[in-house]
């Protein structure tokens, strides 16, 4: 069996009286695409926010590549290789596409404020290195032609891809995609599935975690599926099993009267 990258055990999170996530456990292996599905309000995004440490879990543990990250901050977790996109794209509007990707490498830019202000040689060298890595990533994902464009001038589908490129450039261990198909038209969704497959092919080590509404996308893409409803895991398994699970159908389609 391949290496387990992300291991979540018995995660709990409640907001006031609402238990958003109840006893969620999950493992993601290297090179695996795992999907979390479920209707609105099922606590999917909360799970993502727990993994990326925007929220701290009330109970339970998280481990990344065998290291316990339960008490790590959002910044530390990101630096350890958990990278994500957001439900509504959150590209930095003031930066062009290239800079948006570069900024994901900048926490580790390896030159000081003084070197930056006086244009010392190390600044040039490191900056060149950052640009090279960012351009490589953009080229790999066929986005190089948009490098100098502001994200607000791009179609939504491309913005989504740029966001994924930004999350990928730092070579993370886990890539989390929060509803990547939200707001896309059917054709764009189709392209997105290809795009995620492409990423999967080009980064064979990368574990991908997807939150999604659309069954078709999930069924095509994922190796393993968790189904959430009202914070609880109601089913888990291979896509084919999930498709016929009566509990899942009930949650999605409602009960027969």
């Amino acid at each position, binding site marked *: 069996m391949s290496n387990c990258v992300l291991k979540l055990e018995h995660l709990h999170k409640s907001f006031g009286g609402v238990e958003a996530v109840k006893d969620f456990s999950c493992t993601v292996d290297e090179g695996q695409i795992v999907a979390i599905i479920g209707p609105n309000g099922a606590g999917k995004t909360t799970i993502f926010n727990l993994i990326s440490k925007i929220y701290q879990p009330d109970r339970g543990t998280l481990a990344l590549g065998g290291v316990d990250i339960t008490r790590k901050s*959002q910044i530390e977790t990101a630096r350890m290789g958990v990278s994500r996109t957001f439900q509504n794209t959150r590209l930095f509007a003031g930066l062009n596409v290239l800079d948006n990707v570069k900024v994901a490498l900048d926490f580790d830019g390896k030159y000081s404020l003084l070197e930056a202000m006086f244009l010392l040689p190390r600044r040039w060298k490191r900056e060149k290195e950052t640009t090279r890595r960012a351009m490589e990533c953009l080229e790999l994902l066929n986005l190089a032609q948009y490098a100098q464009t502001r994200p607000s001038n791009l179609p939504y589908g491309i913005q989504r891809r740029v966001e994924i490129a930004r999350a990928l450039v730092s070579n993370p261990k886990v890539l989390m995609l929060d509803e990547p198909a939200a707001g896309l038209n059917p054709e764009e969704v189709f392209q997105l599935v290809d795009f995620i497959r492409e990423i999967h092919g080009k980064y064979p080590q990368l574990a991908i975690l997807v939150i999604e509404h659309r069954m078709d996308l999930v069924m095509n893409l994922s190796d393993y599926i968790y189904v959430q409803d009202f914070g609880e895991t109601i089913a888990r398994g291979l896509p084919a099993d999930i498709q016929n699970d009566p509990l899942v159908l009930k949650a999605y389609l409602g009960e027969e009267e």
Partner: protein
Amino acid sequence: MSNYQLSLIMLACISVITVCGVFSMTSLAGMFSLGQAAYMSISAYLTFCLAKYLALPIWLTSVIGIFASGFVALIISLPTLKLRRDYFALLSVAFGQMVSSIVILLGDYTNASIGFSKIPKVEGLVYIILGITVLIVFMVRNLKYSRFGRMCIALKTDEIAARSFGIDVYRLKVKIYVIASMIAAVGGICYGLRNRVISPDAFDWSLSAEMQILLFFGGTNSLTGSVISAAGLKVLPEFLKGVKLFGFDLQSFRTVIYCLLIIVVINFRTKGIMGESELNFAALKRIAKRRSSACSKGGKKK
């Protein structure tokens, strides 16, 4: 050049220095402060008081003054930058007032509201100030186009997203705040050297507010725009001197004119005159190209 012209140049330069400081803080990192004049005050008083009472050379005390301001900025920023942006802006006003009252309380040394005027004369001051201005504009420009500039713009747009890319928002803000305050400190010393007298009133919150206004006028995200507006708007009232309109002396209406100009700009160009674009060689080339192509088209029509 006459002394008057030289002093105008220095006035413009000092304005550019201080606005550069505010630029790195507000435009890059999105911290809105109304207390930056306090750092001018701290460094100016420290520099000239130390020079007088301890008989130290002015360059040495300037260095002490600048670093002391940086240190105060560090101490102030550690608790306040944890707050939300609006509370931070409010606290910065309080801090500015606090520094003013401390200067008055230490009246035995600072001569309180009458003003401290034992400031040595420096030869060739205009060249020194011009040099410092160029250096500071250069430094702030480099800051904008470095990884720090990018991270600042990122955290200004979206702090949570910035954190999820490993950017230590709080530490970066503290760093930028200290740098901005040290730049303001440089401006304060230059101000003292030019005016030969400093008083707590000169560094009150209205000066801090003026810096922000100049910045927004020039373009919230444009360094060249801010520099141009800082120099231009600061010198503008001097040209209104002696000009009379309908029997009113325009000089005495300068605040009104200022405010009208600003209201017009904020209304019709919400992002300031230059918006986000920078004036650099590439932009100049583009404009030249457009004009020449427009000319050639016009020529063909004829």
